[in-house]
Structures are given as C-alpha cells and as structure tokens.
C-alpha cells in the first residue's frame, strides 16, 4: 500500500474524465465526465491527507468541500441542460452554438 498507487489511479481517472469531456456529444455525458474528474481530484486529496498529513487530515475537509461544489455544479448544470433542451430540442453538443462566433 503506497501513496503512488492511489496517485496513479487518480491520474488514470482524471485522464478518462478529460477524454470524455472533450469527445462526448451528449451534454449529460459531459456532466458525468466532470464528476469523474472531480472524483480523481478527491482521491488525490485523500491520499495526500492519509500519507503526508495523517494527524490534521485537512485533505478530508477539502474533500468534503469538493463534494459540496460537485453537488451544486451537477444541480445547476443539469438545470442549464434542461433549459437549453426546452429551447433547442436537442442534447447534442455540436448544436449548442448560441454563443459561437
């Protein structure tokens, strides 16, 4: 059980999240990829908290805040998706070009 195992797992999860974020066509899958990346960050925080700072565990406190922000982000993100879906009748990222030049 070493610190490096957890850091490598977190790096792999983060890379998968970035891939999904960039290549997904469905908006909801983009939101899921963002959740994957936030989870990777959380694994990093927890690993550092356990191996480098086991007494004060500030990493765990940070992880709770990250969970909070992820929950708020999912709620607002899905509300935006629903709002766009009602106006444009699609969930395709390629057609969300209202702000595109």
């Amino acid at each position, binding site marked *: *059980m070493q610190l490096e195992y957890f850091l490598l797992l977190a790096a792999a999860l983060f890379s998968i999240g970035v891939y999904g974020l960039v290549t997904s066509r469905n908006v909801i899958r983009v939101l899921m990829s963002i959740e994957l990346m936030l989870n990777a960050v959380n694994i990093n925080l927890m690993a550092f908290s356990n191996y480098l700072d086991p007494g004060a565990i500030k990493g765990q406190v940070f992880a*709770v805040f990250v*969970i*909070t922000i992820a*929950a*708020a982000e*999912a*709620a607002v993100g*899905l*509300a935006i998706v*629903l709002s766009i879906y009602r106006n444009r009748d699609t969930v395709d990222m390629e057609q969300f070009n209202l702000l595109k030049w």
Partner: protein
Amino acid sequence: MFVLSGYEYFLGFLIISSLVPVVALGASKLLRPASAGPASRTTYESGCEPIGGAWIQFNIRYYMFALVFVIFDVETVFLYPWAVAFHKLGLLGFVEALIFIAILVVGLVYAWRKGALEWS
C-alpha cells in the same frame, strides 16, 4: 497503513451481500423454464398491459424534488461532524451552525414559495 477498526465485519457483510443477487438471479435462471415468447420480453407492469414504451419524457417535477434533496443531503454531510464534535465546540459552534442552517432555510422557503415541493 490501515488504522480504522471494525471494517473486517464490513468486508464480510460486503462479500455476503454481493453474493445475494448473484445467487438469487442464478437460481432463478437454473429453475425457470426456458420459454422465449414475445410476451416474456415485455415490460413487467404487475400484470397489466404496458402502455407505450419506457423511453418517454418524464415530468420535470421529478427533477425539482431531486434538486431539493441534493441540497439538503449535502447540508446533512456538513452537520454530522458538528453533531459528533458538539461538546468540544461549545456555544460559539452552536451559533455558527444555526447561521449555516438559517441560510439554507431561506432556500427552503424559496423552493416552497415557488411551488417546487408540490406535486399537483
């Protein structure tokens, strides 16, 4: 280094509970007659004929309830450590937690006034 206590029982229960669905579905797979008619592939609706497909658009009220639930679920996560460490935090911690709750009660009142908690 693993320092938490009591998780050996957790592991035992995890293994047992993950075996339950495997055994249940496997036993029914072995015991049931292998009939593959079109009726056995329809959606199970407690004996009624299913009307329409399952891929329909649902009412947005489901989303409203889930939204309110998410917010107050996160509030629970914040209040649990406060309750555990209550005696060490004293009166000041109590007041601070009351401020925390009061801010979220404003959101609850807003959701209530906007009708996000009503089904009709």
